[in-house]
């Protein structure tokens, strides 16, 4: 018996494949969502980008009417900027490194040892992020002032370390938890010592998640302004702090735009470097999503 093929003429096609109208509707929605998302994410970034290279840009022109680098020369010529950049980079690196030294062993302990109060302690790291930071910082500033930490580098490092705890403990804890203990036991079984098991078996498995945590920590520390502003003033001025004061004090938009572009630079470099070993789901899986 021959079966009549489904008439094909009223079926829409996409890229040469026949698809149902239902699929088409779903696809159309997907494309619309993508375009909208792109506009929302890229739009503001584009504006900042355009402003940084605009000499003159007045309403209602869609694009700057005069282009140039004069604001870049002006900004880079300033002493506070040239000293803030290495300060910001050094600070972010130091805080990330210290955070790793403190948090990674803690994360391993959270993942592998079932001690009393474990859940509560894990949740407590959320507390820092659960309240308005400004109030927290002001109270800490009072304590730091008495200890002589206000306006010093150690003071800023300490306040920024607090911010990194959540990322640097939660992501690695979840990553360590995902490693099957039997993998470690199998390595012990063939004769590897505990340290070797950690460095040659466990660490390579969690490396992408750890890299994601380090990256997030570095970038967020690099942009961190509130803590650095309240504890660091007047001795310590980071790029992020400078950007705040430029945007607050200057009527000229271009200064802020130039500095924010400069702030993007390290994270762009890092991100492109990290792309090699970061998969899209690493960060989300790190959070146990």
């Amino acid at each position, binding site marked *: 018996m021959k079966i009549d093929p489904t008439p094909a003429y009223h079926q829409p096609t996409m890229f040469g494949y026949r698809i149902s109208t239902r699929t088409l509707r779903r696809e159309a929605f997907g494309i619309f969502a993508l375009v909208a998302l792109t506009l929302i994410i890229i739009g503001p970034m584009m504006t900042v980008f355009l402003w940084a290279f605009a000499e003159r840009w007045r309403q209602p022109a869609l694009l700057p009417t005069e282009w140039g680098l004069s604001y870049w020369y002006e900004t880079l010529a300033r002493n506070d900027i040239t000293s803030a950049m290495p300060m910001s980079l050094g600070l972010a690196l130091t805080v990330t490194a210290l955070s790793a030294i403190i948090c990674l062993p803690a994360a391993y302990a959270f993942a592998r040892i079932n001690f009393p109060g474990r859940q509560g302690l894990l949740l407590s790291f959320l507390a820092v992020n659960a309240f308005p930071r400004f109030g927290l910082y002001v109270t800490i500033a009072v304590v730091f002032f008495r200890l002589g930490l206000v306006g010093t580098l150690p003071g800023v490092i300490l306040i920024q370390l607090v911010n990194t705890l959540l990322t640097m403990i939660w992501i690695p804890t979840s990553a360590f938890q995902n490693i*099957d203990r*039997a*993998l470690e*036991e*199998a*390595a*012990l*079984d*063939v*004769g*590897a*010592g505990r340290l*070797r098991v950690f460095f*040659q*078996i466990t660490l*390579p*498995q969690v490396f992408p998640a750890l890299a994601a945590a380090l990256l997030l920590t570095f970038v967020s520390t690099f942009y961190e302004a509130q803590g650095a502003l309240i504890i660091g003033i007047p001795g310590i001025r980071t790029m992020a702090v400078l950007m705040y004061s430029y945007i607050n004090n200057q009527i000229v938009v271009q200064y802020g735009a130039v500095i924010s572009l400069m702030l993007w630079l390290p994270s762009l470099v890092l991100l492109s470097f990290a792309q090699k070993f970061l998969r899209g789901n690493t960060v989300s899986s790190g959070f146990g999503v």
Partner: protein
Amino acid sequence: MPTLDLINLRKQFGSVTNPVVAVNDLNINVADGEFLCILGPSGCGKSTALRMVAGFEEPSGGDVQIDQQSIINMPPNKRPTAMVFQKYTLWPHMKVYDNIAFGLKLRHLPKNQIDQEVQASLELVGLGRYGDRYPAQLSGGEQQRVAIARALVLKPKILLLDEPFSNLDALLRVRLREELRQIQRNLKITAVFVTHDQEEALSLADRIAVMSKGELQQLDKPATIYARPKTLFVADFIGAMNMLDGEVNGGVVKVGNQRLPSPAECVAAPAKIAIRPEDVIVTQTGEGAWHGRITQVSDLGHYRKVFVQSPDLGMLKLYLPKSIEINDGEMITFKPTRFLIFQGPLPPFEVKL
């Protein structure tokens, strides 16, 4: 000559006030080159016992000896044992070659010797050309073969296997089981294999240790375990068994409406009568026989599995030869040819008719 002895081995978890005994006074001796299976339902303590041999669990009491030397104080990485795990435990970031070579490298062997031994062990498990692959590129069965190669390449005194095939499908399980048995015979390696699958244990083992609730029930050859189970648990757990209530009284045991002979040593008391489904014949006369209605007949190739509902005994399972013509719903009369009488904790009495 590697031998393994578990002596009064004990493991208890939980708090002091509320201890959970996982393994209780376990005594097992494994001879050189022997393949011993520890068999029991999940939670009977068989894996815990094996993990104490490997060193992953610390015993609460007793001793583990290899060649009469206690290994209890050795960390797992120093013990002359190698383990194949239930889960796939190949290290995913290493190629098959590096997985197997890992232990050899730790022993600082020269490179070309490592190459040779890795290749030899891969060929032993039939994966000669798989060295360059990553574990994720292998099927479950292939991964467990590599895990076996990884354990064997270190030439351990004792090979430990913790339900290594339970994640595989039935056909593959049977094939790998046979391959493993062949490899073990050829290498004459002493092996302890933990499983909850009685068919696996019966077909693999030189001897089987049946465990229940942390205690050793019986340690015997497979045929003996099947024919002469020492405890009610073993009788019920190994193979199919019809368990009937009976009453011993003066040289006979009354089961249902029939009297069967019983040995003189039996005391006059209630007893459990255990009859294998194949130890039953269909008879014409009612003398010493039960009767019942057939409720289900399944054709299992060379024999038939028959369920019989008997008014005296309840539901019984019988394995009958295909030469007998039977159908659903018919009445049949049948009697046992062989049965066991269990009384209390004593080993059972065997009766042949």
